[in-house]
């Protein structure tokens, strides 16, 4: 079993660093960016310090982080646990490329929480099983079913991890100017070390600090971008609406000839069935999330867990209300003809640059990306670990 795991992992890294996954070099001059590097290191140190000072005394503290955290704190932890490179880079990139169609990602990843809370949570808690394979195995009285579901979960975790490692590779490429292949390995090393250190310390407190950093660094550049492009910048989440309208109809410097109505028209790039299928899949997938459902077993009062999910959804929504704004402003600058590199994968990072703003602003978004990635890796490692022990028990 152990050997299979080792082979799988080696194969994974060979694949990840192969040219098949190679992405646009974000830093072709190979320049070492001193300030981003320093910021990144100090941020990692900050998280480890938070971990040290809020060290969990026992298992219950580790999950519930004592009694003082409350529902909002728990919600923030859920949110930072949930948001990964996909929410952060992927969503804005997809909206930039596919326009209204990609809004189904925003809805899929939030609407699923309604299903989770209403249909899943109570049942799973009543059944008293900690993991999905356990539940399937007991529900259908079958060890084979349990093994199959464990294998499927491992497969899914691998696919999930690919996106995260790609994000890490891109970020280290951007900061240190080393090529993408090397970045994947170096980045993985740094993140693993961080996960090992912080994972042993208090998880919940760390997640809360991560969430606050993510939101601040995600929101700040947007105010500057909105005001630079001449939109309502006090609340850029609302201000970008006019940009969406201008992208489709022309206005604010965009002539009607270059306007791109396919950005906002609902069925300009895909059919209604595509939209429906994608959104439904994402919602059902969200409803089955192990690390959110996991909260329902560990919290002594189920009511607290439910309220944590509501606050968690709210905290996630803050970021998801914002992501389309990045996509729209980037699309707008693109139509305006502003020069600058466009990598749809890194649209959140490029957006400030595209709008003609200084580099330190894109640095902010880089930072929250780092936080996002390390946060989601902590949770995905945890999930992989749980599944692995599951499988070993079965075998």
């Amino acid at each position: 079993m152990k050997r299979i795991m080792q082979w799988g992992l080696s194969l994974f890294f060979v694949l990840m660093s192969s040219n098949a996954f190679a992405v646009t070099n974000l830093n072709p001059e190979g320049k070492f960016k001193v300030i981003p590097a320093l910021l990144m290191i100090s941020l990692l140190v900050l998280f480890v310090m938070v971990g040290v000072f809020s060290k969990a005394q026992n298992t219950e503290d580790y999950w519930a982080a004592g009694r003082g955290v409350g529902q909002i704190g728990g919600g923030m932890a859920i949110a930072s646990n949930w948001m990964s490179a996909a929410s952060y880079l992927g969503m804005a990139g997809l909206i930039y490329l596919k326009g209204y169609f990609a809004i189904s990602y925003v809805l899929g990843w939030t609407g699923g929480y309604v299903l989770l809370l209403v249909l899943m949570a109570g049942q799973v808690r009543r059944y008293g099983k900690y993991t999905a394979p356990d539940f399937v195995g007991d529900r259908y009285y079958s060890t084979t079913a349990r093994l199959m579901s464990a294998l499927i979960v491992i497969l899914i975790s691998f696919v999930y991890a690919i996106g995260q490692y790609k994000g890490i590779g891109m970020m280290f490429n951007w900061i240190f100017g080393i090529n993408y292949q090397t970045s994947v390995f170096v980045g993985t090393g740094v993140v693993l070390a961080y996960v090992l250190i912080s994972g042993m310390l208090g998880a919940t407190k760390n997640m809360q600090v991560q969430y606050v950093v993510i939101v601040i660094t995600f929101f700040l550049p947007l105010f500057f971008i909105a005001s630079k492009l001449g939109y309502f910048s006090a609340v850029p989440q609302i201000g970008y609406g006019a940009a969406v309208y201008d992208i489709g109809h022309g206005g604010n410097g965009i002539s009607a000839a270059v306007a791109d109505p396919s950005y906002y028209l609902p069925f300009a790039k895909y059919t209604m069935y595509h939209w429906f299928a994608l959104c439904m899949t994402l919602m059902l997938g969200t409803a089955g999330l192990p690390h959110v459902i996991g909260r329902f077993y560990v919290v002594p009062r189920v009511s607290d867990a439910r309220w944590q999910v509501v606050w968690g959804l709210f905290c996630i929504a803050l970021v998801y209300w914002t992501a389309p704004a990045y996509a729209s402003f980037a699309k707008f600058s693109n139509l305006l003809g502003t020069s600058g590199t466009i990598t749809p994968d890194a649209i959140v990072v490029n957006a400030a640059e595209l709008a003609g703003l200084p580099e330190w602003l894109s640095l902010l978004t880089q930072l929250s990306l780092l936080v996002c990635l390390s946060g989601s890796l902590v949770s995905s490692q945890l999930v992989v670990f749980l599944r692995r022990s599951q499988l070993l028990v079965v075998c």
Partner: protein
Amino acid sequence: MEKDININFFKPVGEFMTKDVAMKKKLILIWFFATYGFLFLLKMVANPDDVVQLTLNTGEVITQVSGKSFLTETQFMGFPFHFWYSAQFLIGLFIFLCYVYCKFIDKLEAEHGK
């Protein structure tokens, strides 16, 4: 051996479960129609003269309405209305649905001493 108890979502037993299931059904209905009903509505009211050509993954080329209608051309807070509805309002609605369910089930549990 323990006796198996048959619990079926569609055949609720007792007052607690009956009320709980009724509420759940309501919320799921709202959730479904707000998300997907709106999508179907967009398709239904779309201007039939405004068409686009699409190439599917299979290579097949289809012609369909682009979805242009009063829903997409009306501006609301600057947004095309459907964009605002999907990207902002629906997320808020999801939070509200979760909030309503939590309030409801807390009250129900208190009444039944759970």
